[in-house]
């Protein structure tokens, strides 16, 4: 088969909803697109542990602390599932990590915002995990088998994340006036960055074309963002908080909420590395990685010794 025939057979498989598996032929662009998307997704899970790790030692109760720890551990697991899926495309774990640390690869900008109060733990679980879920539910149907399977596993674990966050913020919203103000403030700060998590508007997304054609992405940025808004507005009402968007209103005709202008200058500024915590996040990642170096070396040395022992025996 020549290249053109292979390409046609590949597209026919995609169109017939047959998953692509690691050993299958795939266009180089498809491979690259997935490597970029999956690694960015994996990095987000891992870096996303930092803003929450900030509150482990200051969690208000023991229950809150074990819950937060369990959630953070899940996120580490999500990173592992995703790196493993990414590795099936022929890049090693070390290469992915190096790309993150040399800023060749990105992670979700939302994690470059600080978590200033305990209410932020509520808002992060409710909004950030909530937005991630909308995206990940859609990605369960992505065309690359290992990525789709990782998503199924992740989605099973995510609903606890969102519920624990919503519980925290609901609890604060019905507390003292100061606590309620704290909850509202967390929503005010994290609402717009959460909407930005879905990426630029469809009209401004150069990668959308191939991603949709190859069914890597099953729904567009704007479709997913709209889904998230539509389900979150009511949840805010239930706990008596106000979404910080004066233009937000129900549109009878479309059956969706209309919403205000997203500040894309802010988005691009954070993507380019100038968010409040970009530097801190990356430095912390490097520090943790370097601090673990001796452990990896010791484990490898131990494995080597065991192998040698076996040879002798």
């Amino acid at each position, binding site marked *: 088969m020549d290249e053109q025939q292979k390409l046609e057979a590949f597209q026919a498989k995609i169109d017939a909803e047959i998953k692509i598996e690691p050993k299958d032929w795939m266009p180089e662009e498809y491979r690259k697109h997935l490597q970029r998307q999956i690694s960015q997704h994996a990095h987000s899970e891992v870096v996303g542990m930092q803003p929450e790790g900030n509150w482990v030692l200051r969690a208000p109760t023991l229950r809150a602390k074990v819950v937060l720890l369990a959630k953070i551990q899940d996120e580490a697991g999500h990173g*592992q599932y995703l790196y*493993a899926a990414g*590795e*099936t495309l022929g890049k*090693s774990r070390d290469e992915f990590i190096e790309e993150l640390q040399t800023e060749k690869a990105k992670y979700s900008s939302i994690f470059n915002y600080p978590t200033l109060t305990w209410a932020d733990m509520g808002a992060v679980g409710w909004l950030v995990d909530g937005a991630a879920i909308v995206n990940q539910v859609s990605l369960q149907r992505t065309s690359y088998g290992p990525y789709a*399977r990782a998503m199924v596993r992740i989605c099973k674990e995510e609903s606890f994340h969102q519920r624990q966050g919503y519980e925290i913020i609901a609890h604060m919203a019905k507390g003292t006036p100061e606590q309620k103000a704290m909850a509202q403030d967390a929503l005010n700060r994290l609402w717009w960055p959460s909407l930005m998590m879905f990426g630029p508007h469809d009209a401004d997304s150069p990668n959308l074309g191939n991603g949709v054609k190859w069914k890597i992405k099953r729904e567009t940025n704007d479709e997913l963002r709209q889904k998230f808004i539509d389900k979150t507005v009511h949840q805010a009402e239930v706990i008596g908080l106000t979404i910080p968007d004066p233009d937000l209103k129900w549109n009878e005709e479309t059956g969706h909420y209309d919403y205000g202008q997203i500040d894309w200058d802010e988005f691009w500024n954070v993507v380019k590395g100038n968010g409040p915590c970009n530097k801190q996040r990356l430095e912390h990642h490097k520090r943790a990685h370097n601090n673990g170096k001796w452990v*990896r070396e010791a*484990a*490898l040395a*131990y494995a080597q010794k065991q192998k040698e022992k076996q040879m002798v025996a």
Partner: protein
Amino acid sequence: MDNIKDNQGDVWEVFVQSKPGLPHKHAGSLHATDKEMALQNARDLYTRRNEGTCIWVVPSNAIVSSLPEDSDSFFDPSDDKIYRHPTHYVMPEGAKHI
């Protein structure tokens, strides 16, 4: 993937049996430098919520796989043997429980 630069240990495939009596099913993969570490990592990564009663870990490079590009010819011998399926046989009118 074999990569000289990679110091995260080898890749292992993880199979989890969710209940006694059921087959072990592929759950995903992980990195580990030896088999004990592979088993412990598998427990921490794939069974945080009682998903399993037994785990197998297998070095990825020990798995022998058929090749997708050969699958047409590889599976061809079973293509024309419809008599291997119960629906191939004509049962007498009115026969039951067969």
